């Protein structure tokens, strides 16, 4: 009689009608795409998704250039002299340090900092539903904070409107990369990437080794000039006689040494107290702020343990599957499909909703993207509310604070992010506007559809009339 097979229902798998069969045919003609090609954040990918960089990779070439030029000058001019007068180990040590710096820099720049993938529509709807089921039938925007207890310390979790989820503790949304990053430290333009949970240890080893390298080169150049001057010539004469390029490496080293050493010292303090730059700037755990005494709940109260945890702890995996393949029948939002679906839907609206089959309803859910058209008359009242929400939401999107490394115009980027918020918020809000709508019409969330179809025969569609 019936051909039953247990199969997990996928919204995409519901498309069996001629309209969707055509779409499927078209899609199969394309080659399978990798997930990095449709990644929503502002990132650039290289080597087919293996390497990730921020789209604003700004001054990374400058950083590389400075390091290479300084080391090149050092090896070309100082080393021959010092090898003759001192020891062969000088270029060896220099070489080792240079290799270390280069590898750390490349790893910091091209490693996923701990980006959290955005919530799927099902999850976002589930979160919204959990917040919404407190009894009120009118739509309320998801509350922006949720308080939890971590080690007897109250911590507020914020809701990210871009990623549609409550951010885990210590996670922050980088406005430059448009991603939520775990254990967000700061966005470093010198490195061209965010510094977060997964690449903090690379960043730290980069700045420490760079401090050693610049100090070493500075010391060697000073030694060189001193030795020259000791050979009977005065200091000024020695500098004049040497090629004009000698002072260049000296000057670069002199200026960078203070900033690099300062930064290394600052980050050593952060590592020892298990803090991030973000938390330090905001003063999240500072006991001086207000009357509340808040302590850092993440610290292990021991410098050695804190250092070991941050630098030598287990290496978490990348949560964004960059090189995975997209499912072959990924639904492409089709505005045309909704137009086709619309007239028959409207005609049936007043008539019995039960005349639609299960699959029909679910198909509409999958193919229609333009929900305002399908709404019951109750919608216009709530739309202004939604737009208010989105305009309120935008200014509070996290600017990514950072010190010593960058100057950001966070407000600009928050402002530009406003239109997308309003669009997506509108779409998400419409499915839970009023109970009549919920019972009578299909909604984007399939869990709502469950409620619709499950309750339909019993209620007899009274709310519609």
């Amino acid at each position, binding site marked *: 009689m019936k051909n039953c097979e247990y199969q997990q229902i996928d919204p995409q798998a519901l498309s069996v009608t001629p309209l969707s069969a055509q779409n499927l045919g078209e899609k199969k003609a394309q080659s399978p795409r990798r997930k990095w090609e449709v990644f929503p954040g502002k990132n650039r990918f290289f080597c087919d998704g293996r390497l990730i960089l921020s789209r604003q990779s700004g001054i990374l070439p400058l950083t590389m250039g400075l390091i290479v030029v300084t080391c090149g000058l050092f090896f070309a001019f100082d080393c021959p002299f010092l090898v003759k007068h001192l020891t062969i180990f000088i270029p060896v040590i220099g070489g080792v340090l240079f290799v270390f710096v280069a590898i750390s820099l490349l790893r910091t720049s091209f490693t996923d900092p701990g980006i959290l*993938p955005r919530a799927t529509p099902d*999850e976002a709807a589930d979160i919204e539903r959990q917040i919404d089921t407190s009894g009120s039938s009118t739509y309320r925007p998801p509350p922006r904070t949720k308080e939890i207890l971590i080690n007897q310390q109250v911590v507020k979790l914020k809701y990210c409107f871009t990623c549609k989820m409550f951010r*885990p503790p210590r996670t922050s949304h980088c406005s430059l990369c448009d991603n939520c990053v775990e254990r967000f430290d700061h966005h470093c333009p010198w490195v061209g990437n965010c510094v977060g949970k997964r690449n903090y240890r690379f960043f730290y080893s980069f700045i420490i080794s760079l401090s050693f390298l610049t100090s070493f080169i500075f010391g060697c150049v000073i030694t060189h000039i001193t030795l020259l001057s000791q050979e009977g010539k005065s200091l000024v004469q020695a500098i004049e006689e040497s090629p004009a390029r000698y002072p260049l490496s000296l000057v670069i080293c002199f200026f960078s040494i203070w900033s690099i050493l300062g930064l290394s010292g600052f980050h050593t303090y952060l590592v020892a107290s298990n803090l991030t730059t973000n938390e330090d700037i905001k003063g999240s755990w500072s006991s001086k702020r207000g009357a509340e005494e808040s302590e850092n709940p993440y610290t292990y109260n021991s410098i050695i*343990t804190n250092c070991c945890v941050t630098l030598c702890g*287990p290496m978490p*995996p990348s*949560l964004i599957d960059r090189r995975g393949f997209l499912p072959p029948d990924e639904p492409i939002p089709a505005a045309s499909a909704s137009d086709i679906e619309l007239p028959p839907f409207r005609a049936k609206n007043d008539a019995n909703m039960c005349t639609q089959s*299960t699959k029909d309803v679910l198909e509409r859910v999958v193919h229609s993207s333009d929900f305002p058209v399908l709404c019951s008359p109750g919608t216009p009242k709530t739309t202004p509310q939604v737009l208010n929400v989105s305009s309120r939401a935008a200014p509070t999107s996290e600017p990514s604070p950072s010190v010593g490394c960058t100057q950001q115009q966070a407000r600009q980027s928050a402002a530009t992010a406003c239109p997308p918020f309003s669009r997506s918020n509108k779409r998400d809000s419409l499915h839970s506007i009023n109970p009549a709508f919920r019972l009578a019409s299909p909604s984007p969330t399939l869990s709502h559809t*469950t409620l619709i179809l499950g309750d339909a025969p019993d209620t007899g569609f009274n709310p519609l009339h």
Partner: protein
Amino acid sequence: MAETHSLQDMRQQAAITAKVFIQRDYSSGTMCQFQTKFPSELENRIDKQQFEETVRALNNMYAEAEKLGSQSYIEGCLACLTAYTVFLCMETHYEKVLKKIAKYIQEQNDKIYAPRGLLLTDPIERGLRVVSYNFVSIQTEQIEHFSVLFFLIRAHSR
């Protein structure tokens, strides 16, 4: 009639796309742990004990992956000394545990959840944010849908 289904069956067929999400539990910090509170949607499908056992086993495995023991320190120090190039050749401890977790979830699905019409998804596919239980559907032929349609009309006209 050949296409007679009870209202109950039809409702069950209709409840094919529900997903239950189990969120993260942050009470012990940023470690990957999931809430063991039993969701009400699963009441008819599995026992509370079975559910708690599964979630606790997952929590223990993630705790093992993130454990700060001598092994992870040695791995970290070795990586640091080799300028992190060792990660290109070697699989990290975390990745090994993730494979173990995937195998465990597969096993649980085969033995316990598939017979009850549920599917447990690996949290790594969701960015370690949630564990989700998907209700598995019964996929029917086109002709069955007409029969369901017919039955709906009948139910309404009653």
